């Protein structure tokens, strides 16, 4: 069978021209590039905030901005940098480069990828919407627009952020924006983890995985484990602000410290989620410009994994000053100390690689790497200091801490990202950046950064507090603050120079060719910019540095198609000759391989351009905006649109049912393309997604138990969960729904007709609806007023979450039942049925947990 032509492949993979094609693009490269570009946009906005902050602090007793505006500026600065720059930036880099590095054509769930991007964009716009309104006020007569800029800091601690002390809608916008951004990050993490686990090219085994991919995998796992807690915390805070449910209000049994736990369970890993991919970038750049493989590859892998794991158990180190028992602090202090060891391992490995360089090329990318090594090591050392409880109690909330984390986050994250821009720009745009401008930009940013933050350590030790909008003259802080402000502007000038340099190169820089650095990893085998389909043939990887054959040269002979024949010949740079008619119809497809030995398992058919992700993200963002602004005329249609869009998304197209020539573009015509169960990549995505929902439920259970143990009495006097009968009956019915779904799957496996399968699924829907009615009836009859106590509020939120899950299971099952009645299933096409079963098992398990917590736990409470 002739291999398809590049023209035919390109037609299958390229988004159609025009606005619809642009808005509906789902391929990993445009989506990854949009993540990166939008993150840079928010970096600019956050950077402008910081310049205003530093301008205010340049001189003592300055009045450029008042205390209120200062609070708003540091809130949007911190939020933009932490939620809308760093995480989307590293995820965007991962989305763009991971498939190229592991030899895949795309990520496994392209439409989800696009949904993640649009949620992130709309979240960022919602964050800055109040600021835009305020700017508009400046130009309009009589300030007609309301002022609602968030001002609770990037951490939003209650009770400051309760509706009593922050009555404007700013915090509500903040909460919705952050929730959308975190859901986007979780979607990206599911995508990344499944892609790396299941879409690696044959031969790309764990011991050959590029270190950048290891770091992206590690943060993907960390995001899945850590981010559900902030989603939970944010939803609880918004429920408290909007509906008066007292989760954090001490007078009604809530606990402000609960927010800190939920926030920092996410917040501490967040720092490492930004930092680890940055180390991955460094580990990619160093071998290219030292002309040798990285030293201690295996130890660096250990360091990446252990840093990600340790980061999940350090959250209390942000709460050392909250009055928690000392004994509890020691265990988090121990972990905080230990996390320096893996970071140290990486630093030593990089320094050793530099020292052992065969031929050191000190270009702009390498300068940023060296700048990173110096600044990050310094930040790491001050990190050891603040990991010590006695020192932290002294330095807490001073400029010492501000300086420390900027050394870690700017030195440890932003400099490697700049290095990555210089390293990968030629791959993405096919043009080289100007080296002279680049070196000037390095020195401006490096000197500007150190001028800004080095002296802030001293300011902190001298007692200058964070987040104060001014200070008195003559305290010995004046000169240091002035230097710090000048440094910030120098840093900004360096960054503007980088942007200018990128623009100039994009307009007409020298052409780069496929591998201008003669680097060793697979992304450099693709053309620059990469073709829409990445690789003509899925490569077969023969080593850790697949493009090096000992001479630092790309060797096309290292590549074979996944199947020994037909073997393509290379004309350099990954453009391989092909045959076949140019106008044939092809599917978008990539290879799914086994977890350990990357054995080809099946062909993954991927969807093409779709507007469904944009429509769904818009509907969700409009819902969020409408709820915040009390515009329920917007909320209702948007909410009604959500299930319709999901149904549209799930409904199979003709190409999904009868793909043209499946396996043709993979050299793997005999691989199955209709698979279900653990072998299929969508099953992995579903299980990880449900795992995240499970963690949200576990966070709610954690919150319930935390409040219960610390309350004087739990349940409070006179309140109870009500009789067991209806909830128990609902549990039985949910179990019946799962059994009925399983029956449908079994009938489909033995080749029963569509009507029979649809009947089994309709049974699931019917019992699910009855269970839902019973649950709601129980809640209406026995649930105390959720605004009256944290106990009633926790009951309401746990029951509400369960009801929502049941409603989703019912809705999805109804859509699949319709598909069955339509005759879309047979004994091979079972995936949707399989997923319905998994969903019902999950809903049953969740109800068992919630039921046990609400109805079976003995009374608790400190009294």
């Amino acid at each position, binding site marked *: 069978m002739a291999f398809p032509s590049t023209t035919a492949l390109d037609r299958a993979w390229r988004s159609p021209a025009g606005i619809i094609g642009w808005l509906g693009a789902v391929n990993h490269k445009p989506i990854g590039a949009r993540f990166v570009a939008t993150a840079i946009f928010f970096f600019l906005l956050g950077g402008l905030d910081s310049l205003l902050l530093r301008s205010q602090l340049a001189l003592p007793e300055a009045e450029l901005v008042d205390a209120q505006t200062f609070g708003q500026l540091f809130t949007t600065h911190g939020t933009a940098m932490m939620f809308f720059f760093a995480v989307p930036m590293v995820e965007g880099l991962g989305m763009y480069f991971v498939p190229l590095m592991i030899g895949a054509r795309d990520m496994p769930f392209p439409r989800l990828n696009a949904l993640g991007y649009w949620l992130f964009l709309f979240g960022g716009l919602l964050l800055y919407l109040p600021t835009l309104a305020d700017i508009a006020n400046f130009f309009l007569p009589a300030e007609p627009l309301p002022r609602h800029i968030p001002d609770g800091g990037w951490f939003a601690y209650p009770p400051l952020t309760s509706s009593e002390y922050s009555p404007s809608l700013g915090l509500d916008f903040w909460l919705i924006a952050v929730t959308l951004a975190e859901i986007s990050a979780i979607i990206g993490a599911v995508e990344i983890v499944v892609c790396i686990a299941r879409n690696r090219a044959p031969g790309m*085994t*764990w*011991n050959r995985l590029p270190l950048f991919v290891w770091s992206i995998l590690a943060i993907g796992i960390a995001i899945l484990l850590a981010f559900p807690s902030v989603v939970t915390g944010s939803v609880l805070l918004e429920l408290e602000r909007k509906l008066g449910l007292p989760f954090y209000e001490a007078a009604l049994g809530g606990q402000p410290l609960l927010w800190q736990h939920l926030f920092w369970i996410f917040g501490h890993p967040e720092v490492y989620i930004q930092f680890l991919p940055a180390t991955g970038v460094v580990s990619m750049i160093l071998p290219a410009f030292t002309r040798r493989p990285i030293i201690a590859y*295996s*130890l660096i*892998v*250990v360091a990446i*994994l*252990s840093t990600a*794991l*340790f980061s*999940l*158990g350090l959250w*209390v180190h942000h709460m050392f000053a909250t009055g*928690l*028992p*000392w*004994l*509890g602090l*020691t*265990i988090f202090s*121990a*972990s905080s*100390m*230990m996390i320096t*060891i*893996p970071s140290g391992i990486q630093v030593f490995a990089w320094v050793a690689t530099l020292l052992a360089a065969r031929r050191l090329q000190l270009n702009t990318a390498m300068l940023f790497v060296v700048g990173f090594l110096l600044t990050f090591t310094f930040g790491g050392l001050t990190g050891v200091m603040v990991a010590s409880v006695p020192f932290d109690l002294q330095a807490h909330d001073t400029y010492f801490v501000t300086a420390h984390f900027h050394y870690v986050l700017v030195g440890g994250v932003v400099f490697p990202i700049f290095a990555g821009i210089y390293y990968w720009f030629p791959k993405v745009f096919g043009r080289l950046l100007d080296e002279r401008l680049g070196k000037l930009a390095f020195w401006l940013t490096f000197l500007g950064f150190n001028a800004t933050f080095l002296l802030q350590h001293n300011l902190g030790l001298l007692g200058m507090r964070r987040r104060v909008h001014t200070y008195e003259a003559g305290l010995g802080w004046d000169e240091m603050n002035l230097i710090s402000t000048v440094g910030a502007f120098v840093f900004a000038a360096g960054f503007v120079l980088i942007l200018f340099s990128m623009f100039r190169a994009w307009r007409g820089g020298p052409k780069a060719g496929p591998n201008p650095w003669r680097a060793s990893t697979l992304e450099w085998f693709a053309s620059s910019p990469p073709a829409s389909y990445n690789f003509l043939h899925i490569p077969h990887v023969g080593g850790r540095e697949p493009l090096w054959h000992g001479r630092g040269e790309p060797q096309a002979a290292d590549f074979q198609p996944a199947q020994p024949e037909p073997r393509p010949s290379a004309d350099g740079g990954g453009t391989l000759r092909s045959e076949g008619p140019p106008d044939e119809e092809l599917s978008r497809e990539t290879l799914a391989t086994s977890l*350990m*030995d990357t054995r080809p398992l099946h062909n993954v058919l991927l969807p093409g351009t779709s507007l469904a992700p944009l429509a769904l993200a818009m509907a969700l963002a409009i819902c969020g905006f409408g709820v915040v602004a009390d515009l329920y005329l917007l909320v209702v249609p948007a909410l009604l649109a959500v299930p319709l869009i999901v149904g549209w998304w799930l409904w199979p197209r003709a190409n999904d049912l009868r793909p043209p020539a499946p396996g043709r573009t993979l050299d793997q015509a005999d691989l199955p393309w209709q698979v279900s169960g653990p072998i299929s990549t969508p099953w992995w995505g579903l299980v990880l997604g449900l795992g995240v929902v499970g963690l949200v439920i576990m966070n709610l259970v954690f919150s319930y*138990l*935390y409040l219960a*143990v*610390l309350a004087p009495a739990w349940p409070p006097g006179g309140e109870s969960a009500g009789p067991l009968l209806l909830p128990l009956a609902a549990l039985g019915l949910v179990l019946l729904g799962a059994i009925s779904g399983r029956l449908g799957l079994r009938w489909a496996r033995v080749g029963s007709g569509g009507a029979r399968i649809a009947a089994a699924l309709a049974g699931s829907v019917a019992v699910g609806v009855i269970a839902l009615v019973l649950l709601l009836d129980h809640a209406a009859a026995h649930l105390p007023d959720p605004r009256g106590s944290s106990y009633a509020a926790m009951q309401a939120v746990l029951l509400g979450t369960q009801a929502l899950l049941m409603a989703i299971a019912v809705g999805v099952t109804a859509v699949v039942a319709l598909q069955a009645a339509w005759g879309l299933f047979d004994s091979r096409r079972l995936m949707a049925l399989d997923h319905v079963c998994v969903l019902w098992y999950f809903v049953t398990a969740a109800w068992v947990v919630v039921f046990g917590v609400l109805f079976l736990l003995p009374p608790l409470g*400190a009294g």
Partner: protein
Amino acid sequence: MRAHGRNRDALFVIFAVTGGAWAWTLQLWLSWILAEPLCFLQPSGFRLAGLDSNALWILIGLATGALTLTALLASFGLWRDTRESATADAPASRRRRFLSYVGLVLNALFLVTIVMGATSPLFLEPCT
């Protein structure tokens, strides 16, 4: 039977690589429950099965430390077993050696962390 053996072997490798991480997670959460919520309930310290909170803390450290040590020995055994066989012609064995090496270092790191965390009651009173 062969599949059963393969599964058992996979579980052994998973334990050898991740045993320390699981043990540390267990220690962290159990110790935190001892130190924060339970101490809040009984600020002067409490007893469970005749043991005070500090003794329980050390016991948790010993149990999770022992689990990590077992994982460390398992990864060491795996690493030693692949010394001869991990050649370029045996990719499966090289993968195994790589994973055992990762497990060896990870478990050692977690063991030190568990020991550091477990010893604090030697210097602090219960529930302080």
